[in-house]
């Protein structure tokens, strides 16, 4: 199928189609029945239990009937401070349904879901995967009434604003410059693939998903692999709570992302590109498809791109089905292969054996966009932005207790204080940088600069893309419990420290909330977090404990009054009344 969007590449094995098929069945039928599962298993030549294993991994796939309208309300911390519980009540009242179930007429089903990438316009929910933002009780009432009247959520949904709040002065924006499709690709005419890699190396560009691995190293080692075909994968599984920069980028300049992927294809010799789009961004799929089709019609995708003989590149879209860990590159690959999204070990790197065991590059949306824009604007222009050792700009999704939540394109080197001032943060107290897996920052550290320079030497802070601001009226313990709950539910369950550890840590945090923890509990928590960090298999488990560790270290004052200081070293507090309550029911 040249010159048009492909659903699958002809050489991909059957099982790669599994996730898209499951999603389709879920979307049309409302659930995946036993019969449908059996049929898929036969079709894919898998055992039934294997397909069921895949279904049960992703939280947007159901094995019990749901309803005509499936509503997912975001339960992230930002949503919580913006009125989550009120909206939750309103939804239950208006639909006559309890969360986790559907009503008797199977019209509405309500579920919670972690961050849907709308932190700048919370509370927000997805109805049949169409976004509804800035919810309030009146709005909920109107939406539910309209749905009852038979209106189509696809028509009445909101078009989420991009909320681009800040661009660097003197027209220094990189990502939101006027964009013309193909301009960067035109520059490739006089460049060899090695040139491109050299170019990316010069730019110091590193993984914008938050891992900050030098992009050129990935590209260069992929290029040197003998095995073919190679794959270029765009990681649009923006699952880190509080992050929505990729959403805005894909909505505003999807072309620049595609172009970055095509350039990566040129640099590494890969001919196949896949965009792994998280299920929550289903509403962006149409736009992406249109852009891809436009690229095909302009000769920017397909065979002999820009007239260059042998420069072929195709892109398809892979939808996710609800799993945070699939943002981890090897879990993403597993998911694309139609399996449970369990991260692989580092025995092989994706550039050696990635998708279908072939050399694969996985980069973030922003990384690809950055490549396209820097090639288009020239390296010197690019290096002109930011600070020495950390050139360029960074997209930051800012949310929480600020006047202007939205996207801030900052030059590297801006301090946290400057950023907070721009956003209009009143009484900021607890600042979570790079999402729950990142670093918690107190206002004592407001001078720290956001950059990708050497952290030890400069005390700078890296930012994967999200800054959540909480003011002094927020309870830190509630934030920690919300984060911990998120990790506990999103852990893939494959390694012991993350699977059991997150649960254990969650219990401990609840103990602190209930005021029965002692100093030794804080120490235990700190040590147990350290064990999780050192032994977990992937980034999720290694970073899940960051918030409690940073909070204990940086906000000690906050915890002290929460502890039980009456402990005499011998007798632990024990709520006898509470623990015999269940038995008291049998008092006749």
């Amino acid at each position, binding site marked *: 199928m040249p010159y048009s969007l492909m659903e699958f590449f002809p050489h991909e094995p059957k099982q790669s189609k599994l996730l898209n098929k499951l999603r389709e069945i879920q979307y049309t039928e409302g659930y995946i029945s036993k019969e449908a599962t059996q049929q898929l298993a036969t079709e894919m030549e898998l055992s*039934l239990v294997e397909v069921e294993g895949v279904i049960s991994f992703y939280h947007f796939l159901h094995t019990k009937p749901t309803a005509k309208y499936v509503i997912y309300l975001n339960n992230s911390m930002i949503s919580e401070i913006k009125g989550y519980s009120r909206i939750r009540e309103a939804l239950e009242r208006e639909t006559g349904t309890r969360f986790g179930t559907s009503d008797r007429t199977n019209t509405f089903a309500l579920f919670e879901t972690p961050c849907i990438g709308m932190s700048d316009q919370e509370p927000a929910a997805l109805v049949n995967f169409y976004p509804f933002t800035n919810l309030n009780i009146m709005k909920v009432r109107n939406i539910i009434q309209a749905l009852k009247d038979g209106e189509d959520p696809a028509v009445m949904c909101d078009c989420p604003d991009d909320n681009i709040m800040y661009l660097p002065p003197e027209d220094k924006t990189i990502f939101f410059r006027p964009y013309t499709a193909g301009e960067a690709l035109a520059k490739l005419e006089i460049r060899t693939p090695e040139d491109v890699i050299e170019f990316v190396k010069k730019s110091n560009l590193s993984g914008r998903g938050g891992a900050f691995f030098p992009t050129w190293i990935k590209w260069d080692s992929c290029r040197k692999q003998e095995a073919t075909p190679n794959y270029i994968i765009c990681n649009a599984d923006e699952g880190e709570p509080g992050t929505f920069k990729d959403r805005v980028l894909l909505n505003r300049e999807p072309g620049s992302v595609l172009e970055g992927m095509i350039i990566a294809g040129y640099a590494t010799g890969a001919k196949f590109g896949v965009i792994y789009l998280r299920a929550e961004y289903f509403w962006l799929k149409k736009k992406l498809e249109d852009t891809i089709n436009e690229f095909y019609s302009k000769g920017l995708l397909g065979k002999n791109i820009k007239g260059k003989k042998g420069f072929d590149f195709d892109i398809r879209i892979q939808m996710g089905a609800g799993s945070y860990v699939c943002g981890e590159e090897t879990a993403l690959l597993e998911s694309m292969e139609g399996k449970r999204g369990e991260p692989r070990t580092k*025995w092989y790197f994706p550039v050696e054996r990635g998708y279908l065991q072939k050399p694969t590059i996985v980069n973030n949306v922003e990384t690809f966009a950055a490549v396209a824009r820097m090639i288009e604007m020239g390296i010197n222009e690019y290096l002109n932005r930011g600070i020495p050792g950390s050139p360029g700009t960074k997209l930051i999704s800012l949310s929480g207790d600020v006047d202007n939540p939205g996207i801030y394109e900052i030059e590297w080197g801006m301090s946290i204080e400057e950023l907070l001032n721009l956003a209009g943060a009143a009484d900021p107290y607890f600042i979570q940088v790079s999402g729950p897996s990142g670093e918690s920052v107190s206002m004592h550290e407001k001078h720290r600069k956001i950059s990708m320079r050497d952290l030890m030497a400069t005390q700078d802070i890296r930012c994967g893309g999200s800054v959540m601001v909480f003011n002094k009226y927020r309870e830190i313990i509630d934030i920690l419990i919300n984060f911990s709950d998120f990790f506990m539910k999103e852990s893939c369950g494959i390694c012991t420290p993350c699977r059991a550890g997150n*649960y254990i840590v969650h219990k401990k945090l609840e103990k602190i909330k209930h005021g029965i923890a002692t100093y030794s509990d804080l120490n235990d928590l700190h040590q147990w977090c350290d064990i999780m960090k050192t*032994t977990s298999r992937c980034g999720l488990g290694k970073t899940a404990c960051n918030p409690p560790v940073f909070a204990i270290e940086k906000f000690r004052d906050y915890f002290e009054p929460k502890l039980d200081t009456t402990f005499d070293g011998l007798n632990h507090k024990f709520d006898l009344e509470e623990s015999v309550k269940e038995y008291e029911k049998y008092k006749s």
Partner: protein
Amino acid sequence: MKNTKPKEKLVSFSIDGKTCEAREGQNLVDAAMENGVFIPSLCYFKHHDPPLGTCRACTCKVNGNYLPACIQKLEEGMAIEVNTEKLKDIRHALVEMMFAEGNHFCPSCEKSGNCDLQHMGYELGVTNIRFPHLFKDRVIDYNPQRMVLENNRCIKCRRCVEEVFTDEGKRVFMYHNRGIDTLVAVDYEQEAQLTEKQAKAAMDLCPTGAIIVRGSSLVEPFGERSFDMESDQKDYNVLFPSKKEQKKMDKKTVATVSLAGCFGCHMSLLDIDEQLLDIVNVVEFNKSPLTDIKEFTKRCDIGIVEGSCCNAENIETLRKFRDNCDILVSVGECAIWGGLPAMRNTIPLGECLEEAYINVETSVKGEWVIPYHEDLPKLLDRVYSCNEIVKIDYFVPGCPPSADHLWKVIRNLLWDEGFSVLYHEFKYD
């Protein structure tokens, strides 16, 4: 298959500062073993490429980074740390975490003695578990024709998922759900395709007692199983040295109690045979079922607690022990983490009571009653370990602990007599 056909080139590397030599590209677990260093691992399989890397019990420090040994290919000049205090503690913690996560009741498990996890506990000398037990209710699947799948015991090592296939090449086991709810599910149709031999192989593959083949799990008698035999490790090296000046064996006061337990630990205490005669000379028993003294009459040097807390009276008694004893020792599994009485912890109290008093076959229809009287101790919502209620100073594991071991511990605590924990005395099945 890189780790099964390693290149023949030899490389040198170091383990804890000692220079070692092995084949390049070899798996670190094997390479260390060849050089006489044991790295504990539960999920590792020589022939599996890439290695599973799920249990993390083999975590070491490789060139300064914490990494599981089983996913390390050997390279020239690698500096590896295995037995530092921190690493030993981390590995210990991971095994503890597996015990805390599952519902492992060794005394009622068919695999006891043949269980890799139990063996690992012995090898590492796991006494008590720092983490709270999760007590999650997990599915036991009796549906397969030949097998029983006991998810309470599963450590999610992934061996069965990756290794058990039918002759047609279809998977028999697969993970379901995710996070803490992850469990192994079995495909009934495919399971029926397995030959008897393949089914037994699956049972043997399982490092714990999660996969049981009906009729063949008890063929080997307890006591003669692979890990019941002596280990290379004869003792754990002296854990409790004597003080320089050994105290005079002056007379001490001891109290004992059995809370929610079976009195087995008390029986074991009496099992010290002729040494009982020594005890009479040096120990005075105060409140204890052995003396039938009901209340404390004086302060005691040591309190020995057997059993866990399942009702309000247990809590009260335990608190009295804490108040009246200088040293409090938890003896046996029940006291340490709940043990067999804690089997009810995965099920709501109401369900337990109804099952016992209403739905039971011997109850007369319409005349059932769930006992409740102000003179009866009130049942707690779940069984609590002793150290959740009061501070416990020492833990002596075992079900029950052996008499010799118990006596050594007491002598050490009372008169600072040194002793070494011997491997064969240290069993908690």
